[in-house]
C-alpha cells in the first residue's frame, strides 16, 4: 500500500511543477489511500512502523502553515494521516533539493496527547518475516513493570539484565511461553519510559497468545504504528535525523541501505548542519553589518561580495548533501532506469538478461511490448527499477500509441536512461536521437563481432557527449562490461543540478540578507538548537565583524569576485 501511495505521490510530483497546492496534493494522497483501503491490500507490519517514523519527518519538512492546518484538522490520530505524511515526507524532500533557503522545516511534531500517558504494547519484530526463531514484544509506559510482574508472578528482573521467565495469563492461568524478559527503567530505555521486552519463541500462535493476553490488561493498549519511536523522540531519546535513520534501518533491505541508515543514526548529519549554521551565521552577520553599520562605520557593499564565494560554497555543499538525501530516497524506492529505443531493438531481451528471467515477452515482431514492464533488482547493492518500454515509432494502432505515450512519460520521469539501438536499423532513428540527452547511456545492440563493431564506430561520433556501448544481447558480447558501467552510473545517479539564478550585480542586499536569514532559520530548525539569542548574537558578531571586515574589503577591492547571491526562482 505504501508503495502505491508513494509512487502516486512521486508521479504526481513529477508531473506538476514545484509549488503545487498542498491541498491538491493531500487530496490525491488521501484518495489513493482510500483506494488501497477499499481493496484491502495487504499491509506489512513494518510498513506502519516506518511510515509513522517517516511521518514525523514529513511533519518536519512541511511548511509551517500547512502543518498547522493539518494539525488542526486532526482530532484523532489517524493512521491515514501518518501514511499521507510519509508520502509527503519523501516527495517534499525531493522538492527541497533546489531550495537551499528552505533546507528543512521546524521540529514541530504531531503530538498525540491522548495516549502518551498510557502504557502501550506491540510486537516489535516483524510479523510477516515468516516463522522467526524469536519474536519480541515490547511494552512501554508506566505500567510496564507491573504488567511483567503479573505475567511472571515474580519480582521484576534486575534492570537491564536478562532473565528467563515463564509467562502465564493471569486470568486463565494458562502458560503462554517460556521467554527471556528484560526490564528497562525509564529514562534509560529506548522510549525513555519504563520498558519491558519479552523475547518469545517465534511463531504466530505464541505471539498472538501473548498479545491477546496483554490486550486484556485494562491499563494497556496496543501501540499505534511507530508509537515507540514517537515516544522515544518526544522523550528526547532520538533527534529527528536519527528517527529518520532508524526508520530506514528497520526497513533496509540491502547492505547499502543499512550503511546509509547507520550513518544517519550516528548523528553525523547533525554535525554537518551545525557547521553550516555557523557558516551561514557568519554570512548573515556580514550582511547585517553592512546594512546596520555600513554608513556609520564605512563598511562598503563590497563586503557582501566577499561573502558570496562562501555562500556559493555552502550552496554547493548543501546541494550535494541534498542529492545524497535524494539518493537515500532512491535507495528506499529504487532508482528509476528506463530502457527506450526503436521497436525490436532488443529492449525486452536486455531487460530479461538483467532480470535473469523472462520478465518480458520477447518476439521477432516489432511492437511486442505495449505497456511498461518493471523489474526491481538489487544492482550493485542498490534497489533499481528497470522499465522496459514500447518501441518508439509512428504507429496508427491505438494500443501501441498509448504504449508509446507511456514510454515517453516514463522516459521523462526516469533517473537514468538507456537508449537501445539496433545496429542493423541504425539509419532511421531521427526521432529517437533527439531523446538522447546528456547522461543517456547509448547501447547499440546486435553488434555480434569485431567487424560489426568497427562498422559502427562512426555512430559513436553521433553521440559525442554520451557513453556508447556496442553489445550483443544475444551472444552476451560486452554485456558484463555494460553492467559494470551501469552499476557505476547508478551509484552516481545524481549529478548536482544548478538551480540558482544569478543576479548580474547585487541590487538589493536586504533581499539577499533576508534569504540568508531564512537559510539560517532553516538550518537552526533542522539541528534543533535554535539559539534564541540569535539576534543578539548576530548583532554582536556583526559589530565585531564590522571592524575586521574593512580589512577584507581592502583586499578585495582590487579584484572583487564576480559572484552574486543566487536568487531562487519561485514560479
Amino acid at each position: 500500500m505504501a508503495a502505491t501511495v508513494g509512487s502516486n505521490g512521486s508521479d504526481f510530483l513529477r508531473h506538476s511543477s514545484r509549488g503545487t497546492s498542498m491541498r491538491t496534493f493531500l487530496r490525491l494522497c488521501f484518495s489513493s489511500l482510500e483506494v488501497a483501503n477499499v481493496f484491502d491490500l495487504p499491509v506489512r507490519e513494518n510498513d506502519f512502523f516506518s511510515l509513522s517514523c517517516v511521518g514525523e519527518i514529513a511533519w518536519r519538512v512541511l511548511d509551517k502553515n500547512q502543518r498547522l492546518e493539518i494539525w488542526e484538522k486532526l482530532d484523532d490520530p489517524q493512521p491515514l494521516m501518518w501514511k499521507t505524511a510519509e508520502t509527503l515526507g519523501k516527495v517534499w524532500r525531493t522538492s527541497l533539493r533546489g531550495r537551499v533557503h528552505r533546507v528543512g522545516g521546524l521540529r514541530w511534531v504531531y503530538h498525540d496527547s491522548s495516549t502518551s500517558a498510557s502504557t502501550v504494547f506491540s510486537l516489535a519484530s516483524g510479523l510477516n518475516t515468516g516463522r522467526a526463531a524469536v519474536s519480541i514484544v515490547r511494552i512501554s509506559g508506566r505500567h510496564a513493570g507491573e504488567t511483567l510482574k503479573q505475567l511472571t508472578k515474580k519480582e521484576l528482573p534486575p534492570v537491564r539484565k536478562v532473565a528467563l521467565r515463564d509467562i502465564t495469563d493471569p486470568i486463565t492461568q494458562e502458560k503462554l511461553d517460556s521467554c527471556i524478559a528484560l526490564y528497562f527503567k525509564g529514562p534509560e530505555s529506548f522510549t525513555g519510559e519504563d520498558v519491558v521486552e519479552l523475547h518469545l519463541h517465534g511463531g504466530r500462535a505464541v505471539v498472538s497468545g501473548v498479545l491477546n493476553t496483554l490486550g486484556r490488561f485494562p491499563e494497556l493498549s496496543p501501540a499505534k504504528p511507530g508509537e515507540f519511536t514517537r515516544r522515544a523522540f518526544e522523550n528526547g531519546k532520538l533527534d529527528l535525523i536519527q528517527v529518520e535513520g532508524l526508520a530506514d534501518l528497520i526497513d533496509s533491505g540491502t547492505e547499502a541501505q543499512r550503511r546509509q541508515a547507520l550513518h544517519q543514526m550516528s548523528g553525523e548529519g547533525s554535525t554537518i548542519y551545525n557547521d553550516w549554521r555557523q557558516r551561514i551565521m557568519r554570512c548573515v552577520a556580514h550582511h547585517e553589518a553592512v546594512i546596520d553599520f555600513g554608513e556609520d562605520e564605512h563598511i562598503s557593499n563590497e563586503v557582501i561580495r566577499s561573502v558570496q564565494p562562501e555562500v556559493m560554497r555552502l550552496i554547493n555543499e548543501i546541494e550535494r548533501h541534498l542529492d545524497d538525501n535524494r539518493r537515500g530516497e532512491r535507495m528506499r524506492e529504487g532508482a528509476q532506469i528506463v530502457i527506450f529505443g526503436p521497436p525490436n531493438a532488443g529492449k525486452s531481451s536486455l531487460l530479461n538478461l538483467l532480470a535473469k528471467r523472462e520478465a518480458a515477452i520477447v518476439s521477432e515482431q516489432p511492437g511486442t511490448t505495449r505497456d511498461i514492464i518493471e523489474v526491481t533488482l538489487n544492482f550493485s547493492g542498490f534497489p533499481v527499477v528497470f522499465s522496459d518500454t514500447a518501441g518508439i515509432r509512428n504507429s496508427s494502432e491505438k494500443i501501441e500509441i498509448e504504449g508509446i505515450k507511456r514510454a515517453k512519460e516514463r522516459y521523462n520521469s526516469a533517473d537514468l536512461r538507456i537508449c537501445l539501438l539496433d545496429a542493423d536499423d541504425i539509419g532511421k532513428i531521427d526521432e529517437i536521437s533527439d531523446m538522447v540527452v546528456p547522461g543517456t547511456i547509448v547501447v547499440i545492440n546486435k553488434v555480434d563481432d569485431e567487424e560489426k563493431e568497427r562498422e559502427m564506430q562512426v555512430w559513436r561520433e553521433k553521440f559525442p557527449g554520451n557513453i556508447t556501448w556496442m553489445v550483443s544481447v544475444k551472444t552476451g558480447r560486452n554485456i558484463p562490461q555494460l553492467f559494470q558501467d551501469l552499476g557505476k552510473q547508478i551509484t552516481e545517479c545524481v549529478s548536482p543540478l544548478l538551480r540558482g539564478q544569478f543576479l548580474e550585480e547585487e541590487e538589493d542586499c536586504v533581499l539577499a540578507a533576508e534569504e540568508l536569514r531564512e537559510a539560517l532559520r532553516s538550518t537552526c530548525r533542522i539541528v534543533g538548537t535554535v539559539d534564541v539569542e540569535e539576534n543578539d548574537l548576530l548583532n554582536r558578531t556583526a559589530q565585531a565583524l564590522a571592524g575586521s571586515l574593512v580589512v577584507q574589503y581592502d583586499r578585495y577591492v582590487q579584484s572583487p569576485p564576480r559572484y552574486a547571491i543566487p536568487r531562487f526562482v519561485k514560479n
Partner: protein
Amino acid sequence: NRGNVCKSRNSYIYPRTLQKSGRQVRSFSSFIQGVDVIVIGGGHAGCEAAAASGRMGAKTVLITQRKVKTFMFAGLMNNRDKGVLSCNPSIGGVGKGHIVKEIDALDGLMGRVADLAGIHYRVLNVTKGYAVQGPRAQMDRDIYKQSMQQELEKTPNLSILEGTVDDILEEKETSGSYVNRVKGVRLKDGREVLCGSLVLTTGTFLGGTIHCGTHSQPAGRAGEGEEGIHALAENMKKNFPLSHMRTGTPPRLHGKSIRYDDLEPQPSDAEPHPLSYLNVGHRPRETVTCHITHTTQQTHDIVRDHIHLSPKLIGNEGHGVGPRYCPSLESKVKRYPDRTHHIFLEPEGLNTDLVYPNGISTSLPADIQLSMLRTIPGLENVEMARPGYSVEYLYNDPTSLHPTLETKRVSHESTSRELNDSKVKGLYFAGQLNGSTGYEEAAGQGLYAGINAALSVGKREAFLMDRSQGYIGVMVDDLVNKGTKEPYRIFTSRSEYRLSLRPDNADQRLTAIGRQLGCVSTERNAMFNKKMEELSRYRQMLSSVSLTATAWSKHGASIDPHGVSRSGLEAIGKHRVSMDKLREIWPEQLKDMTRETERQLTIEAYYHDHLIRQEREIGVFKRDLNRSIPEDFDFGRLKSLSNEEREKLNTMKPRSIAAATSICGITPNTVLELIRFSSPRRPMNID
C-alpha cells in the same frame, strides 16, 4: 488627603486648554479632581509621552526641572551657556529613522519638529534596498528646541510644570486587595500633584553622575544647572531593580578653528527626504554641509597612553556599561587598535559656530582631549568649546515591565512584605530609564507609554504593538521580554519582519490604529485617507492592466518574450520595469499619479513576493502568540527541562508561547514542551 493637595496645587496645573476640550475631559471624569497623566522629564521620551497623552484627551502635566530652557538635546543649547552638550544633533538613521516614521504615523512630535529644524538631510543605505533605507536629518538645536516648545504649547490638555520630583506617591486601590495605584508625585518643594497615571522618563538624570577624567559631579547633563534626581533615585531603589549604565558625548569644537580644505564634504541630499508624512515635498530653510575626517595612529597612541586616566565608573568593573554600538573612542581604540575611525563633523546649527565631531565620544581629561583632537586631519589647530564626558545613570531592568511599559514592580529587597507583594498600577517607564540609548528609541517608548497611560486612566484597553507592526513593538518586546545588559539600540536586524517594517509604510501600518486610539489628529487622518485612496486606485489600475510577455519585450522591457503575461505591478516587481516605462505605455491612466504614489507602488511591487512569504510567517507568529500560558503555571513541574530553563521560565513567567520563545537560552525542545502542555486540548497536568 486630596482636598489639601488641591489647595496647594499651583494654579497653572489647570491650563486654559483644558476648558477648550470639555467633551474629552468628561470622558475622563473619574479623575476630575486631579490630573489624568503626569509625565516626569522633558526629554524626547517625556515630550512624546506628554503630547500623546494630551492628544488623546487626558489632562496631562509635564514636570521638568527647567521649564523654559530644557527641551531637547535636552536643553542642549541653553541660552546662558552656549555650547553645552547632550549629544548628536541628528535625528533618524538606519532603524532609528524607521522609528521616527512610526512616531510620526501616530502623530507624534519628533518627525514634524525635526523637519522644521532640519538643516542637512541624508538618506542612509540608499543603495541597499528600500526596506533598510534610513532617513536622517541634522538639526539646528535652537530651532528644534523652540519648535518643540511651540508644539507642546499647541498640544491640547497639556501643561508644563517646573519642578524636581522627589517621590512617587501610591495608594491602595479601593477595589482590589493587594494592588497599589499611583496617586501622584511629591515635588522637592513639598507640593504634591495627584494623577491617574504616571510616566517616568528620567533619562540620564536618575542618579546621574558626570565624569570627565578624574573629575566627577552629580548631574544628568553638563552645564545645565540641573542636578541628577537623587532623592527620587534613593526612593526608587527600594522598589525597583535599578543598576548603572553609561553613555558619553564627544567634545564640541569651534568651527572657525577647523581647516575644512582637505576634508571630504558630505552635502545635504538634493532631494531631502522629510521625516514627517505631513511634509511631502518638504524643503529645509537652509542646509549646511558636513565633513568627514578620521582618527590617526597618533590619536590612538594618545588615547592608549592616557587610558588609565579614564574615570572610574560603577558598572562593569569600573568601565561602566556603555552602548556597544555607539562606543567611546577609548573602547574603539581598545577593540580595533589597527583601524582608523571615521569622524563626521556636524555643524550644530545655522547661527552657531559649534561643531559636533560624531564618532569620538570620550571622557578623558580635558587637556588630553584637546591634544588628541589636534592629531586629527583638519583639526590641527582646533579649539574646543567644551570637553566630552561620560555620564553614568540608573536604569530600571525592563523585564520588570509589562508589554505596555507599565511596571510590574518586582522588588528585589523591599523593606515591607506588603510592598513586595503589591503591584503598582498606573506607573509607566520610558526611555533611557528602560535601558535604551538614542533619541528615537526614547521618543518611541515615550509615545507608547504616553498612549497607554492615557488609555489606562480612560479605563480603555491597552495598546500593544507587536513585533510585526513596528520597530517600536520590536524594541518594547525585546526590552520587556529579554531585558538588556547594555544600552539598547534599535537595528533593522532586530526585526524578523524587516521587509514589511519599512520607513515608507509606517503610516499604512499605524495611522489607522492611532486614529482609533485617538492620538491622530483629524488633519493627519484626512491626509492619510487621501493618500490611501490614491494608492489603492493606482494599485488597482496597475494590477488590472496586463500585457503579454511579447508585448512587454516590444516595449523594451527586459522580459523573456516566451514567458507568461504580466500585470503592471508584476512587471515592476518581477522584472524591475520602471514606472516611467509604464507611464509611456499607459499615459492616460497614469498621468495624474504623484511621485509619492509612484514610489510607494514601486516599493510594494518590488517586495511583493517576499512579503507574501513574510506575511505567512506573521500569521503563524500571531497564532503562536495566541497560545497563552496560564499566569500561575509552575514551570518547575516540567521535569524534562533543565534546571536553568525552569528557573528562567519561573522568573520571567512568560504569558505566551511567543514570549517564552524569545527568552534567552530557551531551546525549541522546551518550546515544543510548552506548546504541548499549553495546548487547548490538553489539561495542564504533568506527571
